């Protein structure tokens, strides 16, 4: 079995990775739309 410390570490890792990957998703989604807006304004 995992120790309580290992389990806490896992939970923290899951939260952190989920947050980082979700931010990447949002960056790509809005990034491309913003890129098109900037391109269209020239």
């Amino acid at each position: 079995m995992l120790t309580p410390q290992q389990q806490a570490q896992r939970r923290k890792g899951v939260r952190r990775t989920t947050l980082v990957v979700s931010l990447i998703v949002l960056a790509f989604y809005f990034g491309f739309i913003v890129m098109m807006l900037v391109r269209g304004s020239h």
Partner: protein
Amino acid sequence: MAEPHTEVHAHAAHDHDHKPHGWRRWVFATNHKDIGTMYLIFSCIMFFTGGAFAMVIRAELFKPGLQLVDAGVFNSLTTMHGLVMIFGAIMPAWVGLANWMIPIQIGAPDMALPRLNNLSFWILPFAFVLLLSSWLVPGSAPAGGWTMYPPLTLQFGSSFPMLIFAIHMMGISSILGAINVVVTIMNLRAPGMTLLRMPLFVWTWLITAYLLVAVMPVLAGAVTMMLTDHFFGTSFFNAAGGGDPVMFQHIFWFFGHPEVYIMILPAFGVVSEVIPAFSRKPLFGYEAMVYATASIAFLSFIVWAHHMFTVGLPLSALLFFMLATMLIAVPTGVKVFNWTATMWRGSLSFEPPMLFSLAFLFLFTIGGFSGLMLALVPADFQYQDTYFVVAHFHYVLVSGAAFGIMSGVYYWLPKWVGRMYDMRLATWHFWLSAIFFNVLFFPQHFLGLAGMPRRIPDYAVQFADWNMVSSIGGFAFGLSQLLFPYIIWKCVRSGQRVEGTRAWDGARGLEWELPSPAPYHSWTTPPTEAMIARGAEH
């Protein structure tokens, strides 16, 4: 064949407890095996739905002239066939296999985000009900091709918002699935399961998940912009308002080319598991395989414009994208040579998973060669929008992705259900698939080289003979696929029980340390170092 193992972990016996029953088990499923099963069943239904569209397409093309459907319906059929097969059949099948296999291959008790997992599955049926019901609205289903190029796609009637919303939902489902895979692999590996001890299937899925995270939002962004062009008066892709329709193609293929690898990389993983198992040898060049997969994924981001050589790109761009595309042959070649080297002097046997993996190896390589031909700019100017392209991508996606899925299912099915399938029928399934796949698609190379355009319901009489051959191959291939669900159903109902933990004597990896069938809750106690080391003998 079966080799009893003495180190079946101790908690197996009580792991069958706490299994929910009835409809709640499936609607509120959070168990990775249940969700994996639902993905695989959904994918199978979509495979036959998309296959039915293909049968009508091939029936219409059986001889010149219009026989069964008008040109508009034909265009809807090709569009829906592409969308259903890519987003409904191939991708969910891989997510299903990922759900089933990743936790038990890395020694994790489940996926890291089980409720998100439930949501990402249950979005899919609604997305496809919406997409498929577009056949019923005025103007019928989308008919602008699965690539959804404006301005054509912007001109649809009621089916347009249905298409856009369905694509958004499929995208959200894929993104949530990918986030779950990344988070699971990065955080839930058993102690001792280092990155370079992970099975190749897990590695290829990790890289695939990163691809999904990077490119699905781009597709979502592109279709959102199309939606605002259609309903809110923007002009992202509307030339009359100062927009640029070709920009849509750039954005679409920035998603679309990695998407090809999203469908293929997990197949590389399956083949990298199956070939060593049936060669009774460790995989040749494990680390090279990992780096080759990562290289292919990286290169897939810088080759998108090879899908649009004829739109009028500058010469420097043509040269760059041609050379970058040809560069992909290097890591792909590393893989093909490593699989071949794995078999070299191995103790080979040819059970159905191995047969499908070998067919993958030969036929995907043919698709790779025709891909190299298409990468040559001057040649592509001739091949563009001909049946040569259709032949090429079906060699990549059917004998590549679909055969990879079948190989994986035939390899792991005994572990999932604890029973062995009818080997004779599965071998028949393989030979009928392999033969009629080639009868179906190989003549399309000739048709394309002779100048037959794609996406047309009628054609000149000089193309009649090979179209008839291709259609006969198509009907036989389609019929032979009915064997697949029958073999699985028969296995689940009455297959011979698998003794011990290993269904195949050459199989390695943590999944083969679990009893068969794999318990409902597995690896609640992490695997021992000895188990991990045994599985990681690369």
